[in-house]
């Protein structure tokens, strides 16, 4: 039996994104942003948008595949897919699902995307205004535990306390994103650098490890990538970017109700990371650039640990700013500014940045980058990750 894998089977041929706006500042409707990103990805790939035959997304994206297909006059829709789970846990999974569709022959040319004009809907940082909380929330909302920051805070408290990791390690993660955004004119935080003093003086969102700058922004915009069979990518304008490995899901009872996951202080990547590295036939030591989704900096720490990039024993020494910066850091990370400082496009902007790094066209280019890992939204469940590489890695 032939090996069941996506390694080297598909490529990202095109990337697209809209202008990234501060929360509530988009002049365009969310669905229009989605259309702009999809068309930009097709243009980048040199492919007629009417050839697109599938859409994959995540986070309960409101821009439905069938509406996109109708609006764009798609000839034949062969794949439409929504990955369960909120936030950016599904960012890599949307690319993986597009890849699986393309490789299996279900479809030929699939867009993975995220459109999010949250400003036109509700704030993430506020609880839903409901008279009565049901399901898990019945045991959380009455105690004032309602926002994403709060849902994850106790994982981070537990992990940081157990391993003696200092808040300064999280500050380095935040500062790396802001540093890279200062040379990325597309970044929402372009021209707004973050200093240690500014970080330390920022207000508490949740003690003991969530200051304001540990938390992502909310933004308006959209991003998209176009996934095609590897053979086809060779004939397209850009240097192909191949999917090497990907996985999604969660470990044993990661979604156990009311904070009862047996392995609680986790970003939920232990099995996902193992499966991703196995498919990629690579490990963290092979990676040139990391894009690690920041919903909260503590989640980045957990995610880096569970993917093998950071040892909790040496996290305080390793997670210093200089190690995280392009082009010369030991582990250049979030090189376009990430969710914190480029745009909170639920990580889709990180997939785009991974592709730019492999093409050699990034604003903060890491020289000779051949392997880039994208670690999707941590601490939600299910989560997902992927590894991309140049032709040299096949």
């Amino acid at each position, binding site marked *: 039996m032939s090996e069941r894998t996506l390694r080297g089977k598909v490529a990202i041929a095109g990337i697209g994104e809209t202008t990234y706006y501060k929360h509530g500042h988009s002049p365009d409707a969310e669905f229009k942003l989605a259309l702009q990103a999809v068309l930009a990805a097709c243009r980048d790939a040199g492919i007629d948008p009417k050839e697109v035959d599938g859409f994959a997304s995540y986070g309960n994206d409101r821009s439905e595949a069938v509406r996109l297909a109708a609006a764009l006059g798609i000839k034949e829709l062969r794949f439409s897919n929504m990955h369960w789970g909120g936030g950016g846990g599904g960012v890599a999974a949307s690319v993986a699902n597009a890849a699986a569709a393309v490789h299996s022959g279900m479809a030929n040319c699939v867009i993975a995307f995220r459109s999010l004009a949250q400003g036109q809907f509700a704030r993430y*940082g*506020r*609880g839903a*205004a*409901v*008279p*009565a*909380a*049901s*399901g*898990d*929330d*019945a*045991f*959380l*909302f*009455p*105690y*004032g*535990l*309602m*926002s994403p*920051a*709060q849902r994850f*805070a*106790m*994982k981070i*408290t*537990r992990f940081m*306390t157990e391993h003696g990791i200092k808040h300064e390690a999280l500050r380095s993660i935040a500062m790396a994103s802001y540093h890279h955004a200062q040379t990325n004119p597309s970044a929402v935080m372009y021209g707004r650098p973050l200093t240690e003093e500014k970080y330390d003086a920022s*207000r*508490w*969102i*949740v*003690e*003991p490890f969530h200051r304001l700058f540990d938390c992502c922004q909310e933004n308006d915009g959209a991003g998209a990538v176009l996934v095609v069979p590897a053979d086809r990518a060779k004939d397209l304008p850009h240097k192909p970017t191949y999917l090497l490995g990907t996985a999604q899901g969660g470990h044993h*009872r990661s979604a*156990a*109700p*009311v*904070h*009862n996951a047996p392995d*609680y*202080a986790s970003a939920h990547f232990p099995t996902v990371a193992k499966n991703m590295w196995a498919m990629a036939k690579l490990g963290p030591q092979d990676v040139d650039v990391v894009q690690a989704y920041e919903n909260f900096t503590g989640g980045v720490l957990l995610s880096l640990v569970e993917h093998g990039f950071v040892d909790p024993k040496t996290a305080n020494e390793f997670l210093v700013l200089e190690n995280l910066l392009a082009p010369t850091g030991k582990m250049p990370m979030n090189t376009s500014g990430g969710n914190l400082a480029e745009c909170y496009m639920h990580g889709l902007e990180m997939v785009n940045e991974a592709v730019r790094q492999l093409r050699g066209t990034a604003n903060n280019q890491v020289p000779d980058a051949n392997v880039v890992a994208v670690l999707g939204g941590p601490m939600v469940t299910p989560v997902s990750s992927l590894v991309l590489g140049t032709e040299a890695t096949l």
Partner: protein
Amino acid sequence: MSNALPPGLPAPAQEPVAKPYWEGTRTNKLMIQRCTGCGAHQWGPEWVCHRCHSFDLGWEEVAPRGRIWSWQRPHHPVHPALNGHGPYTIVLVELPEAGNVRMVGNLLCAPDAKVEIGAEVEAVFEPHDDADPPYTLVQWRAKG
């Protein structure tokens, strides 16, 4: 005694899967799911035992005490009822006498009190008799 948090936060929907828990709290009893098939404790409530897949989940009164597994102190108000209230403390409490299941509640303490993982706590039943339907929350305080 005043409540841990100001009025106006969402009430718990007392759903069928959790009914014995909510009924128990009204009489100051802490009731947890326990599988009549394999004896596993389970929290939060679910229709099936995660260990043996029995649907015969019973309810057992457990000792209303535990130890702090983790904690947080929110400052940013996440609901209009919390505007201007200031920081409060949420704890995740492990119940060693009930299969180490964990429960979420507020720790009744000063807003700047030091919180230690592993500290022993006991339950405080907080009735909301004026709600329709009435309910009782389970809060926690340092063991005296």
